C-alpha cells in the first residue's frame, strides 16, 4: 500500500511536470516567446531557413484576383521584374511580392508610424507610441485617405496593391510567418490603403518631421540677433545653391510683394514649465531615428546630425558621348531589412524600374523608358512650434490673440500588451495639438508646446508617384509633381532626349522674415496660412553650365523672394560642384567614382584656418608638430591626400581635432546654461567664423585672459591627440567609426558590421548608422538606357535567406549591379521565372 502511494506520488509529479513544461513551452511567460513552438522544426523558426540553392516558391501560382495572366522574372539578386498586362495586375503583384519578401518590415513600420508598438511589445514602448501619435502621423494618414480615394489613379493603384498584400497574408499559416513575427509572438494583420498612407507619412516624418526651432530660439536668446546671424547665416555666400539667380533669370514671382497682415512676435519668451519647477538639463532629439524600435534614451549632443543625400545630372554637353547621366544616392538611417525594395514593373511594354518602398505601390526613385528621376530631401523647416499660454492649471482655456479660448480635449487610447488600455489626454489648440505638456515631457524642452506640421495636412503623394512613373518629358514631370506636398524633395530629372532639370517640390507656407525659425507665441501669431504657388518653388531646366545638382544644401541664393529656414548642409554640395566644374566632360565610371567619393573637403578648410591664424605656410612644419607626434603629424598635414579611406589613420584625428576645436570656441557661449543649442554648421565654422579675424567668440568668457585662435588650435590638437592615443581603434578609420547596419528590431544577431570608406561630409556620407540607402546611376541616350544600382541589404527581409544582405559587400566596395530593364523577349539571365494566372 505504501509502495502504491509512492508510485502514485511519482506519477503525479512526473505527469504534472510534463504538463507544466508543455504549457510553459507553448505560451509566452515572462515575455519570452513560446520556446517549444519556436524550436519545433515543423512550424518553428527553422521553417524560415530558406533553401539557398533552389527557389522555394512553385513556378506557377494561381491567384483568382488577377485580371489576366502575368509573368515575374527574378534576376540574379532575386529582385522581381513583373510583366503584367494591366495596371491592376502589376500593382497587385507588387503588393504580393513585397509582402512575400518584406511582410514583417511593412507591419512593424506602419505600427511604428501609428504608435502601436506597445500592442506587441508591452509597456516599455508606451512613451514611443505616445510620441508618434502626438506627432500626428496616423492622423495625417487618416485625413489623406478620402483625398487619395477620390483620385482614380491613386485609388486603384493602392487598392490593387492592398489586395496583393492581403492575398499573400491569407495564404500564410503560422509556419510561414517571417521569423520576427514568431520571435515577437504576434500575427500579421491585414493590409489596407490606410496602412500604405501610414508608410508614406512615416517617411514624411523621417524626412521633414524635425525642427530646429528650440535650439535656434535658445541660441538667439543667448547670442543676440547679430551674433546669431553670424553663426547661423541665412545664405552662406560660398555655397553652391541648387537654383542660383543667374540660372533662374526667367523666373517670375507673383506673391513676392504680398503684404502679410499679421504681426510676428519675435521676442523669445521666458518659458515657464507648468507643473514643475526644476530646471531641466538639455537633450533635444526630436529627429526621429528611422528604426522604429530605437527609442533612444538620452544621447550626447552630436556636433553633426547625420545628413547626406545627393543627386546630380550631367547633360549632353558635359558627357563624353553626349548622353545624359543621372546619379542619385538618398542617405538615411540604415537598417535591415533594407528600406528599399528593387523592382521593375512592365505594364504592357511600358516599363518602370528602380527603388520602391515596401508598403507603397510604384517606384519612388528610378527610371522608365524615357526619363529617370531621383530625390534628395529639401531640409526646409515645415514643422513649427507654438508656445501656448494656459489660463490656469486646468488647461481649459488658452490665450489666442488676446482672448481666452477654450481648449479642446481629445482622448487617445493605446493598447498595451499585458496591461490595461492607456488613455492619453491630448490638448487641441487652434495651432495644433499640444505636443509637450504636463504628462509628456522631454528634457530641456519647455512645456505647453503645440506642433504644426505640413505633413499632417491631407495630401496625395501616391497620385503624384503614379504620374511621375509615367512621365515622358519635363512637362509631364512638372505636371506629376503638382499634387506632391510633403516631405518636400529636390526632384532631379533627366530625359533620354537630352534634357536635365531639378525642382524643389513641396507645399511651403508663405512666411515673414524669420517666421518659423524660432518658437512662436501662439497668442500673438496669426492663424492665416498662405502658401507659395508650386510654380514658384525653386526649379531649373537645362542650365547653361550643363549640370544640375542637390545635396541638401541651401536651395536658393538671396534673390529668392520668400523666406524659409531649414537644416542645410553644404560640404557635399561644395565637393560635387567642385568636381563637376573640374572637367569639361564626364563618363559613367567617373560618375560612379564621384558617388563613392570619400574626399575630406573640410580638412582642407581646417588647414586654411591654421594658415591664416599663423600667417604662413610653415605652420605645418613647426608650430603644429606637437612633441612626441612629429612624424605622424608631419604626414597628417603634409602628405595625407585627404581621402577618408576605410583604413586610413588620419580621419579620426581630424574629426577629434575639429570636435575639440568647436567645443573650445563655442562651448563657453553656447552651452553655459545647459540649454539645447546646436553648434554652427561645419562650413560656417571653417569658412566664415574662424576666418574672421574679428570673430568675438574665440575668447573664452570664463577666463580673464584673452585667448586667440592660435592657442585654441594648439590646445584642441593636444586634446585630440590625447584622445586619439587612448583609442585603440583610431588608427583605422572604419574601426573607429564602427558603422553597423542594425536590424529594425535591434536584434544584434540580425545586423551586420560595415567596413567602408566615407565620412559624414564626404559625398559618400557614412556615419555610425547612416549612409547611402540606395545608389543609382542611369545613363540615357537616344538608343539605350544603361542603369546601375546597389543598396546595403538584399531583396529578402528574411534573416534566413541568402538574399537578406547579399548586396552589402558590393555596396561597401562602391560597386554596382546592372538594373535590368526586362521584357518577355529579353530575359536570358533570369534566376527563375514564376507565372501567375487567375
Amino acid at each position, binding site marked *: 500500500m505504501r509502495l*502504491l502511494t509512492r*508510485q*502514485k506520488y*511519482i*506519477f503525479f509529479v*512526473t*505527469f504534472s*511536470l*510534463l504538463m507544466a*513544461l*508543455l504549457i510553459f*513551452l*507553448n505560451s509566452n511567460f515572462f515575455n519570452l516567446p513560446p*520556446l*517549444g*513552438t519556436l*524550436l*519545433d*522544426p*515543423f*512550424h*518553428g*523558426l*527553422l*521553417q*524560415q*531557413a*530558406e*533553401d*539557398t*540553392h533552389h527557389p522555394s516558391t512553385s513556378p506557377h501560382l494561381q491567384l483568382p484576383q488577377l485580371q489576366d495572366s502575368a509573368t515575374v522574372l527574378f534576376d540574379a539578386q532575386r529582385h522581381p521584374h513583373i510583366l503584367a498586362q494591366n495596371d491592376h495586375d502589376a500593382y497587385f503583384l507588387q503588393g504580393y511580392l513585397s509582402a512575400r519578401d518584406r511582410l514583417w518590415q511593412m507591419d512593424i513600420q506602419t505600427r511604428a508610424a501609428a504608435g502601436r508598438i506597445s500592442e506587441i511589445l508591452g509597456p516599455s514602448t508606451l512613451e514611443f507610441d505616445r510620441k508618434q501619435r502626438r506627432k500626428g502621423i496616423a492622423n495625417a494618414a487618416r485625413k489623406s485617405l478620402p483625398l487619395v480615394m477620390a483620385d482614380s489613379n491613386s485609388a486603384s493603384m493602392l487598392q490593387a496593391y492592398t489586395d496583393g498584400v492581403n492575398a499573400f497574408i491569407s495564404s500564410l499559416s503560422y509556419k510561414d510567418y517571417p*521569423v520576427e513575427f514568431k520571435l515577437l509572438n504576434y500575427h500579421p494583420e491585414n493590409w489596407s490603403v490606410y496602412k500604405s498612407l501610414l508608410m508614406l507619412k512615416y517617411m514624411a516624418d523621417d524626412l521633414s518631421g524635425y525642427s530646429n526651432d528650440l535650439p535656434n530660439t535658445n541660441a538667439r536668446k543667448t547670442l543676440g540677433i547679430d551674433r546669431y546671424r553670424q553663426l547661423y547665416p541665412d545664405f552662406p555666400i560660398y555655397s553652391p545653391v541648387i537654383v542660383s539667380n543667374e540660372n533662374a533669370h526667367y523666373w517670375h514671382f507673383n506673391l513676392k510683394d504680398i503684404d502679410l497682415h499679421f504681426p510676428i512676435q519675435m521676442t523669445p519668451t521666458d518659458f515657464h514649465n507648468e507643473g514643475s519647477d526644476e530646471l531641466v538639463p538639455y537633450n533635444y532629439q526630436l529627429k526621429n531615428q528611422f528604426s522604429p524600435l530605437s527609442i533612444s534614451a538620452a544621447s550626447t549632443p552630436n556636433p553633426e546630425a547625420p545628413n547626406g543625400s545627393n543627386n546630380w545630372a550631367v547633360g549632353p554637353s558635359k558627357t563624353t558621348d553626349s548622353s545624359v547621366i543621372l546619379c542619385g544616392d538618398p542617405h538615411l538611417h540604415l537598417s535591415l531589412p533594407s528600406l528599399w525594395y528593387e523592382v521593375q514593373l512592365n505594364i504592357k511594354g511600358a516599363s518602370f524600374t528602380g527603388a520602391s518602398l515596401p508598403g507603397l505601390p510604384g517606384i519612388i526613385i528610378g527610371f522608365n523608358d524615357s526619363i529617370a528621376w531621383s530625390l534628395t530631401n529639401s531640409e526646409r523647416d515645415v514643422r513649427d512650434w507654438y508656445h501656448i499660454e494656459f489660463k490656469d492649471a486646468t488647461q481649459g482655456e488658452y490665450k489666442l490673440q488676446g482672448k481666452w479660448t477654450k481648449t479642446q480635449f481629445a482622448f487617445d487610447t493605446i493598447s498595451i500588451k499585458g496591461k490595461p488600455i492607456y488613455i492619453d489626454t491630448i490638448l487641441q489648440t487652434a495651432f495644433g495639438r499640444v505636443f509637450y505638456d504636463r504628462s509628456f515631457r522631454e528634457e530641456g524642452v519647455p512645456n505647453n508646446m503645440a506642433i504644426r506640421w505640413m505633413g499632417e495636412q491631407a495630401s496625395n503623394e501616391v497620385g503624384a508617384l503614379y504620374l511621375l512613373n509615367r512621365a515622358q518629358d519635363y512637362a509631364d514631370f512638372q505636371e506629376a509633381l503638382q499634387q506632391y506636398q510633403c516631405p518636400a524633395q529636390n526632384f532631379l530629372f533627366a530625359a533620354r532626349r537630352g534634357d536635365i532639370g531639378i525642382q524643389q517640390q513641396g507645399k511651403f507656407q508663405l512666411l515673414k522674415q524669420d517666421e518659423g525659425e524660432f518658437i512662436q507665441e501662439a497668442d500673438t501669431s496669426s492663424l492665416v496660412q498662405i502658401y507659395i504657388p508650386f510654380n514658384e518653388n525653386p526649379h531649373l531646366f537645362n542650365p547653361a553650365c550643363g549640370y544640375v545638382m542637390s545635396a541638401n544644401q541651401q536651395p536658393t541664393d538671396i534673390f529668392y523672394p520668400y523666406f524659409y529656414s531649414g537644416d542645410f548642409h553644404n560640404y557635399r554640395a561644395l565637393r560635387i560642384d567642385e568636381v563637376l566644374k573640374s572637367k569639361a566632360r564626364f563618363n559613367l565610371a567617373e560618375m560612379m567614382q564621384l558617388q563613392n567619393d570619400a574626399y575630406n573637403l573640410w580638412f582642407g578648410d581646417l588647414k586654411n584656418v591654421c594658415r591664416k591664424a599663423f600667417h604662413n605656410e610653415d605652420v605645418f612644419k613647426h608650430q603644429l608638430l606637437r612633441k612626441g607626434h612629429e612624424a605622424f603629424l608631419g604626414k597628417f598635414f603634409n602628405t595625407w591626400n585627404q581621402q577618408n579611406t576605410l583604413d586610413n589613420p588620419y580621419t579620426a584625428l581630424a574629426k577629434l581635432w575639429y570636435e575639440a576645436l568647436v567645443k573650445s570656441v563655442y562651448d563657453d557661449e553656447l552651452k553655459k546654461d545647459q540649454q539645447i543649442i546646436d553648434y554652427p554648421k561645419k562650413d560656417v565654422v571653417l569658412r566664415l567664423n574662424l576666418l574672421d579675424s574679428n570673430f568675438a567668440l574665440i575668447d573664452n568668457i570664463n577666463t580673464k585672459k584673452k585667448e586667440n585662435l592660435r592657442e585654441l588650435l594648439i590646445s584642441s590638437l593636444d586634446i585630440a591627440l590625447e584622445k586619439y592615443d587612448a583609442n585603440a581603434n583610431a588608427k583605422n578609420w572604419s574601426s573607429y567609426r564602427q558603422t553597423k547596419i542594425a536590424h529594425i528590431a535591434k*536584434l*544584434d*544577431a*540580425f545586423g551586420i558590421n560595415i567596413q567602408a570608406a566615407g565620412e559624414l561630409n564626404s559625398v559618400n556620407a557614412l556615419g555610425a548608422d547612416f549612409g547611402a540607402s540606395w545608389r543609382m546611376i542611369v545613363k540615357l541616350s537616344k538608343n539605350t538606357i544603361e542603369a546601375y544600382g546597389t543598396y546595403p541589404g538584399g531583396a529578402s527581409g528574411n*534573416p*534566413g*535567406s*541568402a538574399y*537578406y544582405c547579399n548586396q552589402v559587400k558590393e555596396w561597401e566596395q562602391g560597386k554596382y549591379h546592372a538594373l535590368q530593364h526586362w521584357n518577355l523577349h529579353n530575359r536570358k539571365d533570369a534566376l527563375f521565372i514564376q507565372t501567375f494566372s487567375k
Partner: protein
Amino acid sequence: MILGYTQGKRVNNGIGKGGNRRKKQKGQRAFWIEWIILPILLLLTQAGLQYFFFWWLMVLPYLIYGLLTDKREGTRSFWLPFVCSFLLWGAYGFYLSYQNDHILTNKLAMLFLKSEHPYLFLALGPILAGLLTGMAGYTGHLFKKLL
C-alpha cells in the same frame, strides 16, 4: 513477477533453458517489433500529429507507448521516446539548416546562445523534444504501474 523478470532476462541474453524456448522465440520477434517497427511507427505518428496539428501533441504516441510497454521496462520507456524524437527533430532540423547553408542557424545561435556554432542551436530542439517525449513515455509507464 520476480520469476518472469528473470526469465525475460535470460531470454534476452540468449541463455534460457530448453523450457523457455517458446518464450525466447517470442522475445526475438518482439525485438524487431520493439526496436525497429515500433520506433518507426512512433516516429511517423509523431511527425503526422505535429505536422498536421500541434507540436505538443507529439507526446501522445509516447504516452501510449509507455502504457503499452512491459511494466518492467521503465528505462526503455524513457530512452526509446527520447531517441525517437531526438532523431526526428534533429534530422529534420539539420536538413532544413543544411539546405540553407546554416545561414539562419548561425544567426539564431548568436541570438539565443551568443555562440558562433550553429549546431549548438540545432541541438536545442532535439534535446527538448527528447526530454518531453521521454517524460511522456515514462509517465505512461508509471501510470501503467499504478493500474
